[in-house]
């Protein structure tokens, strides 16, 4: 009942507060502007940081201390831990980061998110920032009208800062005016009752605002204007640290094991923080007073002391949990395991990253690679070969000749379980992800969709080819047998060459290899070469065999061409280099 109507109930209370009290209205406007500013700034940063942030996080997180430092720096730079969590999950899914590094980044990100408190308590409350906010809002909006996406993003970031500054100013004004009419300090609570009540309030406010940064800005402003006591402010901050994990927990409910592991790591860390903070609240409060005096913070500057508390306790929590991180990782790996199913499920298509263009593209690219690997398994088996026998082999011809043709594979079953559902998921996810993308990114996703379609069509061609391969490999006619072995060799060599491309970091070298492969495969199409004519003329094969060979070599040619297309789209990273590929006829 309450769950069903809580939103309406919340709106009613909000409306009552806004219309009944001018002061409440000013504070709420401040919160609304602050939240709007954070949203705008996040959007701007998301576009501007693009691959830079992702590349940085990928390359500088190989050890736990580096991961913690990177998490701290990245969160400080973009003023938001949610985007960092999302990137971390996408990297875990794409196997670009280990779980240990991901947890390290989350730890660091928790410390980094406390810098918002420092900005609010130092710049926001000490300097009259409203005059700076106005030009920021004006130029932010003007830049937002630009057609250039980068200028638009700069505009959103500036506008975000402007709105945040204006929001802080409103909150400050609101609390100051409240001070003259209504004394909130009457509600100050001491002892364990105070701890319990204020931690819950901090948690609820953060859940409603969906941002610990905004909640902390509110609490710090209230402490700075002496509306609540420093100790109650600490309790609110503890509540905010618990409340901030709920967004990640809710988002992870539908996520895969990696998403759940990261969300649970975040939740556990913040709970650990909260528990030690609550148990040692009084000694910590004394410690903060001592530390504040030592670094020159004024005794009555409770806003900065609150920021100091938030940062210090996060650092202490990281130090305390650091020696046990490896045990924690093993526990997370055991606690959340991906379900195994007959029907292959996507490994990388996580809904958490669908709105981040670069992360979504990487997820789709990885999933297409997954689809390709499954397809290579079925293609190899349908020509009675095992991948591990011929990949990286020096003599594929020999392996093909000596292969055991009794190897049975039900292509239809395999197609249903490991290809069809995965292909459907890629198309569905790609289409949804394109909604938030610019034209360049949309085109990239479109190409990846084409690559998936090529993979599926290659398998369908193999399905047609399989029966005749089996039939003619059992034939007593050695000529037709050789021709079908030749078809198998060409396909196996194509797969083998592409496998080498996957590990090649040089795009030009990779494209040259693929183009050479494309040229050599032209010999496969029997209609285009004269070999089949001589086989017929010399009565080495009959008319039925000739027809089959013409059709099947054409199928095999299509399979190899499609695999080369897929390799060009998926493994050549540079867009301009990718465009240079393709046969002369297709250009």
């Amino acid at each position, binding site marked *: 009942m309450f769950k069903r109507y809580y939103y309406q109930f919340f709106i009613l209370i909000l409306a009552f507060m806004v219309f009944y009290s001018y002061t409440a209205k000013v504070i709420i406007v401040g919160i609304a502007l602050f939240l709007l500013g954070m949203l705008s700034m996040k959007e701007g940063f998301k576009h501007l940081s693009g691959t830079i942030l992702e590349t940085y996080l990928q390359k500088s997180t190989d050890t736990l201390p580096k991961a913690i430092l990177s998490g701290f720096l990245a969160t400080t730079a973009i003023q938001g831990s949610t985007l960092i969590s999302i990137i971390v999950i996408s990297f875990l899914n794409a196997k670009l980061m280990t779980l240990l590094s991901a947890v390290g980044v989350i730890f660091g990100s928790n410390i980094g998110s406390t810098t918002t408190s420092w900005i609010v308590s130092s710049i926001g409350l000490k300097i009259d920032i409203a005059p700076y906010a106005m030009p920021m809002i004006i130029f932010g909006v003007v830049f937002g009208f630009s057609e*250039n996406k*980068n*200028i638009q993003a700069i505009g959103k970031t500036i506008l975000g800062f402007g709105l945040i500054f204006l929001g802080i100013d409103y909150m400050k004004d609101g609390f100051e005016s409240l001070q003259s009419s209504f004394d909130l300090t009457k509600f100050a609570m001491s002892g364990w009752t105070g701890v319990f009540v204020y931690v819950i309030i901090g948690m609820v406010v953060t859940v409603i605002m969906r941002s610990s940064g905004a909640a902390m800005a509110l609490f710090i402003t209230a402490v700075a204007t002496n509306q609540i006591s420093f100790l109650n402010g600490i309790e609110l901050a503890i509540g905010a640290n618990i409340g901030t994990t709920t967004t990640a927990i809710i988002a992870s409910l539908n996520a895969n094991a990696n998403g759940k592991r990261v969300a649970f790591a975040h939740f556990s860390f913040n709970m650990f923080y909260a528990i030690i903070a609550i148990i040692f609240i009084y000694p910590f409060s004394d410690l903060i007073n001592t530390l504040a005096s030592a670094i020159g913070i004024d005794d009555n500057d409770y806003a900065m002391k609150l920021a100091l508390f938030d940062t210090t306790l996060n650092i202490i929590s990281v130090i305390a949990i650091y020696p046990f991180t490896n045990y924690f990782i093993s526990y997370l790996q055991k606690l959340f395991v991906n379900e195994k199913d007959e029907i292959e499920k996507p490994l990388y298509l996580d809904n958490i990253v669908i709105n981040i263009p670069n992360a979504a593209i990487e997820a789709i690219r990885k999933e297409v690679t997954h689809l390709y690997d499954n397809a290579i398994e079925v293609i190899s088996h349908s020509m009675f070969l095992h991948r591990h026998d011929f990949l990286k082999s020096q003599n594929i011809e020999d392996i093909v000749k000596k292969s055991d043709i009794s190897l049975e594979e039900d292509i239809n079953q395999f197609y249903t379980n490991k290809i069809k559902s995965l292909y459907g998921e890629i198309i569905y996810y790609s289409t949804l992800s394109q909604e938030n993308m610019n034209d360049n990114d949309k085109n990239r996703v479109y190409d990846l969709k084409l690559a998936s379609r090529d993979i599926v069509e290659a398998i369908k061609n193999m399905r047609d080819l399989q029966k005749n391969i089996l039939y003619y490999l059992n034939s007593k006619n050695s000529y037709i047998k050789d021709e079908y072995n030749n078809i198998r060799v060409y396909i196996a060599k194509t797969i083998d060459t592409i496998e080498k491309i996957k590990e090649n970091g040089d795009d*030009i*070298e990779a*494209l*040259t290899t693929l*183009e*050479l492969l494309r*040229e050599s495969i032209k010999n496969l199409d029997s209609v285009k070469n004269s070999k089949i004519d001589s086989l017929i003329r010399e009565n080495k094969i009959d008319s039925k065999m000739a027809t089959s060979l013409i059709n099947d070599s054409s199928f095999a040619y299509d399979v190899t061409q499609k695999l080369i297309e897929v390799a060009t789209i998926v493994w050549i990273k*540079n867009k*301009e*280099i990718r*465009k*240079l590929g393709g046969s002369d006829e297709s*250009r």
Partner: protein
Amino acid sequence: MKVDKFLKSIEKLFFNENHNEETKEHIKGKLLEKIDSVKKELKATLNEDEIKELKDKLSILNKLLKRV
């Protein structure tokens, strides 16, 4: 020097077309480098199979260069 770098990055940010031209020049440069190295390899080898392979590679690299 640092000012030049800064201005170039601003130019990249605001004018994508120049960035595209720069990328094309970079690719051309890389292709020419590869062509030179294949030509050198071609001069150094006597093996007929290798010569054929290198000639094919050279023709592909020239084709790609024309497409840039």
